[in-house]
């Protein structure tokens, strides 16, 4: 089938502002949007630039706006979006070139969450694993699925309004550790989250949950963080 794909183009070395180019390529309905981008780059215009790596939705490289919604290009098939496709960079981060945005502010926010297990207690004397029940493990399972693709953060109206906001992805990271029974850094992280740019900026628009390609219930996770801050309890 013939696919018509309209792509946002911006080359800071040449263009004053972004514009759109439209390409037509032959593709199959089971092809990924990423396959179509590769075809355009391979045969129509080699200068088209985008990030990609694993091509099956686990590395988080290719989040973009496809027909107005944040998705991974490698996890979106033509049969799901139709033969007329518009592709644009994710919003709220500076466009570096075409579909590539500057991800550094995103990772900076991630790092503010103290994204590592905090537990200064001695390890078990036998040198073995810290014990954790299957129920304790299940408590934070969902937030371990995050691939840091930024689809959530760049779909969030609060993030568009202020890029000082840590954003949903960072909050999911905080959740992953705060609700891990082995971790003892909840107090430090909740303190970070209580700052102006923390959970207070979440207005439960649910865009993040809808955008997440890993089906993480992000708004719910943020709700649990807010509850923990109010009650001082983690459960």
């Amino acid at each position, binding site marked *: 089938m013939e696919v018509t794909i309209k792509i946002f183009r911006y080359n800071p070395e040449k263009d004053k502002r972004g514009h759109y180019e439209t390409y037509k390529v032959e593709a199959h309905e089971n092809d990924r949007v990423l396959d179509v981008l590769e075809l355009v780059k391979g045969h129509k215009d080699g*200068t088209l630039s985008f990030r990609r790596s694993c091509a099956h939705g686990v590395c*988080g490289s290719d989040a973009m706006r496809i027909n107005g919604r944040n998705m991974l290009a490698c996890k979106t098939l033509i049969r799901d979006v139709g033969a007329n496709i518009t592709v644009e960079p994710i919003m709220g981060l500076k466009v570096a070139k075409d579909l590539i945005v500057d991800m550094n502010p995103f990772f900076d926010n991630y790092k503010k969450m103290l994204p590592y297990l905090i537990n200064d207690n001695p390890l078990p004397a036998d040198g073995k694993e810290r014990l*954790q029940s299957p129920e304790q493990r299940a408590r934070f399972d969902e937030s371990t699925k995050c691939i840091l693709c930024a689809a959530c953060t760049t779909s969030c109206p609060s993030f568009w309004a202020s890029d000082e906001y840590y954003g949903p992805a960072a909050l999911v990271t905080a959740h992953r550790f705060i609700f891990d029974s082995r971790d003892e850094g909840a107090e430090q992280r909740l303190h970070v989250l209580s700052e102006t740019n923390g959970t207070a900026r979440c207005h439960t628009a649910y865009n993040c949950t809808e955008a997440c390609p890993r089906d993480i219930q992000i708004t719910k996770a943020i709700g649990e963080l807010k509850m923990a801050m109010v009650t001082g309890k983690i459960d």
Partner: protein
Amino acid sequence: MSKVHQFEVIVVGAGGAGLMAGLYASRNAKTAVISKLYPTRSHTGAAQGGISAALGNYEEDKPEWHMYDTVKGSDYLGDQDAIEFMTNEAIDAVLELEHMGLPFDRTPEGKISQRPFGGHTNNETGKPVRRAAHAADRTGHMILQTLYQQCIKNNVTFFDEYQVLDFIMVDGKATGVVAIELATGELHTFHAKAVIFATGGYGRIFEVTSNAYVYTGDGCSILLRHGIPLEDMEFFQFHPTGIYKLGILITEGARGEGAVLINGKGERFMPKYAPTVKDLASRDVVSRAIYNEIKAGNGIDGKNYVYLDIRPETVNKFAALDGRTNPDGSPYLITGDTVLTKIPDIVDFCRVYLGVDPVTQMMPIQPTAHYAMGGIPTNKYGEVVIDDKGTTVPGLYAAGECACVSVHGANRLGTNSLLDLVVFGKHAGLKAAEYAKNADYQKMPDGAESSIRSELEALKNGSGKENAFDLSNEMKNVMFSDVGIYRNEKDMTSALEKVRELQKRFKEVKVSDTGKIFNTELLNAWELSNMLEIAEVVAASALNRKESRGGHARDDYQERDDENWLKHTLITKKNGKLEIKYKPVVITKHQPKARVY
């Protein structure tokens, strides 16, 4: 001129091996990790089923059994001293990951949960043993995240989205690397005492692969150009269960949880090929079985795929026939919920890419190019070894998939890749830092970056008669069909000719993007030149080995030939010509014998 940086240890690549090396090297030496990606995009994150260690959390297991299974899995080509080292370190390595915060699944007592995997056995009974420590079906993702988190905690220095293009060697010693900063197109020279390559594999030389786009063999190719040999490049693993046509991996953990392979006649065919462990035989054995079924006309509707079936009714039926039980002795039974909890990502992939629900439908699968057993030759400390006498290159290290220790020999056991990168990443990091503490910086030659600069310029000034995208597809097709699961003299000879023709035609490629910022077209073209180099080496190494062993199966030499071929291939390229030598296999405890599953 390029920007110059100085670090005692440079790690190239930020997957599992690179991060582990970075963590350990940075404890004792000024270290930087350079990656062409953001570290969390690395391909370690795609590993699914588990990491092996004889923890024995459900039932008796021993490092000795793990060692024997690995030796047998390697079809006796693995070096047994290195294998023993790895399997002895395995338990502590997995526990260390837990201590770092890795969220493993848990047993009812709260210990790390383990599942059966291909070739993991109780050596006394021959029955499958639960050895693969897992976190759902995203164990690699958890390892990558956990190691990156530890690097943040420990303030490891990163150069994200810097792609290493060249290695600098002075007087036979590692001196640094040259990298391009993707966001600006600037070249940077990194002056170092020690360089660790952890650049991953090169599965993208094949048409159907589970590997990421970035798996283009950069590290292997860069070192080959500097006269460093590559070892056992003919041994490439085809994983039995890739999603039909797409090659996306369906973890062996699915079969660990009880899934079986079904042919077009509706038969479970693995008992014919591996009577004892059946669907949990080694990957090379299962991939060949699938190929043979398809060749015999037993594919689904006569096509080139078969089914993987994890529907609870199927799993429970065959578990009962096999007498499989839970650790407490009760019959092994699963439900739809088990499938959703144990392999959630696989369920997601099948729904998204195939429109198939594994709980109620069978999954169409075919073997997919998955893992490079071969690579940069090293010893168990990650030191690069260039001959059969143990000669090392001072300051040069390699770890992870790009390296060949060799612990995988002719065929890697499932879950040993994650173990490999954690164990050998750590030791390469430790050894490199130790070396750097006692070494001086070599003098950096003037214009160290000029060679790669002119290589890149040439790509922009080609005639434009050829298109890189098309050349790439031609390479992938010929490698998959003629240097794939089954090989023979005629096909490999023509594949080698074809690859050499493509190398010539590559000189006519012209990169149209003349810009500096994120010039991905330029870097993709450069990566293609690496892949063409690697494809040639793979085909030539394979053509030379006149036997069948592990992942290298020939129609024209069907038997393993220990008398003539129990040896590692070492291939080098000098003045454009390939040269093949061999070195002996280290055999300590297990003499080669027939390999039956």
